[in-house]
């Protein structure tokens, strides 16, 4: 009985960890969708670039002889947020802004092009092999008897969860309290009207891309340190999962992205735990189909009112 409980707890921890990172990436999708009503397909690639930059920063700091873990962690985080944000900004500037006002399909296609471009750009620059890095943060807590089955909660898992919560809280504060956040909400409600009322909508949209990219970089750094491996293709499947999470929670809604991410993570780990690992993607995408069938707006999404 105890063992079954601990096993469940362990799988819950695993699910929440992976779900937290889905949530962080999902935010980028949700924010862009909420404001300009489009899916940024290059977002997964921004996440991948974030991981690469974090690896480089960690390797660079190791060369400089920095060994203090919090500094390594924060340094990697800052470097990757900085570089990824500029990529996010550039994606908006190159693939979205020139096409604004046209048919909605056109920027979608240019974003897919951007995604392919970034993938190959990184592959050519960094090589097509996996780049690996040893674990920086090891150890954790053990729950349950030491001789039998015991659940473990590693420090890295705690960090992932806490960083996700803090990022979400900061973002929510920014959106609800700051001047720029208010402008974001105004643009989300009605882009044309906001423009007429003197809001620099181009700047607002660029900011959205930058924030989304910065959060993807946070996820990239965390997951890079957790798994220790990156290649130029990790962005695709991560992006797909995060997109699923965003739709599940209700695309356009920030708490929805968080909820969707964690639900998806738990659904995956529970499928792997009690059924079979090979079906975990079947279940997560099956969940997406069901949600789209019965509640197309997602769990926390509001039904879209056609703007006049």
């Amino acid at each position, binding site marked *: 009985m105890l063992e079954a409980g601990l096993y469940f707890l362990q799988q819950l921890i695993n699910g929440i960890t992976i779900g937290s990172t889905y949530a962080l990436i999902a935010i980028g999708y949700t924010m862009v969708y909420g404001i300009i009503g489009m899916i940024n397909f290059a977002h997964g690639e921004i996440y991948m670039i974030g991981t690469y930059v974090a690896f480089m920063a960690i390797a660079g700091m190791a060369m400089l002889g920095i060994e203090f873990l919090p500094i390594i962690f924060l340094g990697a985080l800052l470097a990757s947020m900085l570089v990824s944000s500029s990529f996010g900004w550039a994606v908006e500037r190159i693939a979205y802004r020139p096409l604004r006002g046209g048919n909605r399909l056109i920027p979608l296609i240019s974003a897919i092009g951007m995604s392919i471009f970034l993938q190959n750009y990184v592959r050519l620059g960094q090589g*097509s092999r996996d780049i690996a890095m040893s674990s920086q943060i090891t150890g954790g807590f053990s729950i349950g008897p030491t001789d039998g089955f015991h659940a473990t909660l590693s420090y890295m898992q705690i960090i992932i969860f806490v960083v996700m919560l803090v990022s979400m809280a900061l973002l929510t504060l920014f959106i609800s309290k700051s001047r720029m956040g208010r402008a974001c909400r105004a643009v989300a409600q009605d882009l044309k009207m906001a423009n007429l009322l003197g809001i620099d909508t181009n700047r607002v949209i660029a900011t959205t891309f930058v924030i989304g990219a910065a959060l993807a970089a946070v996820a990239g750094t965390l997951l890079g340190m957790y798994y220790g491996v990156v290649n130029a293709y990790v962005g695709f499947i991560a992006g797909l999962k995060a997109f699923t999470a965003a739709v599940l929670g209700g695309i356009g809604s920030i708490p929805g992205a968080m909820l969707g991410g964690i639900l998806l993570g738990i659904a995956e780990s529970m499928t792997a735990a009690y059924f079979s*690992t090979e079906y975990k993607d079947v279940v997560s995408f099956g969940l997406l189909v069901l949600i789209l069938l019965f509640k197309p707006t997602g769990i926390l999404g509001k039904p879209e009112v056609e703007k006049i």
Partner: protein
Amino acid sequence: MKNSFAKKVLGLSALLVAGSAPWVHADIKIAIAGPQTGDVAQYGDMQVIGAEMAVEQINAAGGVNGEKLVAVRYDDACEPKRAVAVANKIVNDGVQFVVGHLCSSSTQPASDVYEDEGILSITPASTNPTITERGYTMIFRTIGLDSHQGPTAAKFIADKIKPSRVAVIHDKQQYGEGIATAVKQTLEGKGVNVVLFEGVNKGDKDFSPLVAKLQKQKIDFVYYGGYHPELGQLLRQTAEKKLDIKFMGPEGVGNKDISQIAGKASEGLIVTLPPAFDLRPENKGLVEAFKAKDQDPSGAFVMTSYAAVKVIAQAIGGAKTQDTEVLQEYIRNNSFDTPMGTIAFDEKGDLKGFDFEIYNWHADGSKTVIN
């Protein structure tokens, strides 16, 4: 304006086509088809350096019947879809001989094209048995079969390791699942307790639910059928939970990148690999030649790729023709002198008498034979 631009483009492409025509001359082109990009590009590198070295040395020794060999690289990224596209491109380029592909799931669909078009292909790495079981005449391989590799591994597990609770995990690909199934069946035939048989998704990074499952089921031995990116993560995440589980895998996991990914956790991994041909005294000169070019001859598919080119060259030289229909007969009925020793093929196109060896893998990426 638009019209004149179109004309220019047309004119330019016509020029290009015309310009490329004189390039068709008497060289014998050999396509090297495999993953030069993607997550198993390491194996593609082994294939490329092995095959290109063979081409270079054969040319240095005067070529084949006075003609030079030319190696042309084709990249399938280990994706079945791209493999078919590559195969069609090889057909269009008029290439008659292929060394490849590497991944079984690429070789299988590509070989359909080669069979139809009469292109002779020798795979230096695809071990899935079904590839040569379809009655095709144009496909050969200079490597063993999973139906041998699996039982070799399983016998070793049952006789030497004697684990009490075994999990067999695979990546649901033709190669991985094929070999995992062979291992499972042999193990069960020998009365070993296989508790878990499960697939994972290729490209997955998170195996924490699976690791918890291994822990709960009290598994003490895992056989993994697949490639190193997934097994590397599995090793790493098992080590992080401090579980005492021994791992074993086929030659698809045996390259230095697994030590990169898994670090210390890769120490003690057991791997079945083609024999280390680079350590044989008769290949010393060849090994030196690789080292002089700063290339690593120890990769599992370097010598098998070298041998594949040698077989093609010796067959063309011996049969004095480039007609692949005659050549496939010739290859079936003769033996060939390669760095793998003197090799011969059976009716199906498989090597006669090829055995895998069992190695202990180390954290620094080196390996030692277990007897």
